[in-house]
């Protein structure tokens, strides 16, 4: 089974972000998306820690330790960017001003449920960050994640076993194996990635998937 690299998944997700969109990038794999904006588009990225209009990672040696994204990675600013404090930053999110939120995931369920803050462990501390604000506030929510854990355990599941971040909130899933739309009828594969066939991807997915062909037939 072939898998995209995290950079390739981020680039595939970036390709679906339209010109002019305001997009929050959450902690983890999502922050990578800012490095892959297609050249013909202007996308304004938002990070929870109080910045709009940031660009790609800086060249080595040009890092500013006080200019970071949600993952605490160094970023650069684009002309037109702005800084603001945390209450204003989350007002943008909760208030419905963000078009797309790209979030990491522990698990995404067939109904769009998202779990990404707690494993329910007594000893491994939970960490919620801005995820719960984004799931209630952003107009559209993309989850970006490896398709499985390293041991092969599916992360795209029939029902989340971890505590939920939000119920029915994810509309698209970008993994190293596929792009998947969450629909009322279930998980619709939009695109198989890295040259895998449908059955290969279905086999490492806990929830039933609909093949790309099914989509075309349903639309036709």
């Amino acid at each position, binding site marked *: 089974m072939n898998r995209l690299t995290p950079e390739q998944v981020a680039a595939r997700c970036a390709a679906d972000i339209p010109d002019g969109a305001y997009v929050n990038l959450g902690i983890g794999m999502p922050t990578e998306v800012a490095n892959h904006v297609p050249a013909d588009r202007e996308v304004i990225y938002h990070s929870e820690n109080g*910045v709009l209009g940031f660009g790609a990672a800086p060249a080595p040696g040009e890092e500013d330790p006080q200019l970071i994204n949600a993952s605490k990675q160094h970023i650069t600013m684009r002309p*037109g960017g702005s800084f*603001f404090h945390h209450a204003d930053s989350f007002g943008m999110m909760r208030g419905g001003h963000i078009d797309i939120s790209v979030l990491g995931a522990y698990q995404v369920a067939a109904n769009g449920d998202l779990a990404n803050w707690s494993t329910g462990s007594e000893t491994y501390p939970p960490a919620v960050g801005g995820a719960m604000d984004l799931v209630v506030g952003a107009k559209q929510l993309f989850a970006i994640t490896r398709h499985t854990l390293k041991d092969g355990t599916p992360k795209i599941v029939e029902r989340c076993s971890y505590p939920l971040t939000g119920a029915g909130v994810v509309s698209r899933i970008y993994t190293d194996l596929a792009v998947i739309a969450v629909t009322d009828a279930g998980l619709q594969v939009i695109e198989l990635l890295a040259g895998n066939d449908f059955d290969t991807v279905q086999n490492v997915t806990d929830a039933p998937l609909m093949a790309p062909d099914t989509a075309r037939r349903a639309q036709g």
Partner: protein
Amino acid sequence: MINRIRDSIAEAIACVADGDTLMCGGFGSSGVAFNLMDALLDHGARDLTIVANNAGVGETGIARLLAENRVAKVICSYPRSPGSVWFERRYEENAIELELVPQGTLAERIRAAGAGLGGFYTPTGYGTALAEGKRTEIIDGVGHVFETPLSADVALLKAERADRWGNLVYYKTARNFNPIMATAARTVIAEVSAVVALGDIDPEQVVTPGIFVDHVIETEQAVA
């Protein structure tokens, strides 16, 4: 390419519909989008609800809309000022509805709408006639009033400078309600004294990030 700058003021305010709720920035005559409000008269919208701190003085701005009978309701904190002749006349005629809101509660209700909150408890107004009929609660021994978010269809703002992303900076006390109203309306229109190149506004100094702004009109109006 993102471009919030509009050539025509009529195009910028075309979205206003009869019956809309409009937020109008300003405190007294400072920070008022007089050009947008004049254009609104030509546009013809009526039966408007105006959210603003004051209700206009003389024959300009909100006063002019009141004179032309375009306003059904005013939600404000201080409708009566020297020269607020049209508001006083319409009020006396019982031709206009007034929702009087303490100024800080007005500001906070607008902010709450912009920030996606469902409402808040404030000590302001507790025990007074302005809290009558409102839900109240004693919190840590202090009486509080429950207040709901206040949003609008359109906000008409006055700012000093803008870039094509819609980033705004203001000028002195002309800032007042403009930045919070920018967050709380479905469509936000700003008239500015000058449009500058993208990047000319220092990211540390942006007051209203462009994420909140839909249309920008550059006016000739001098501010100082």
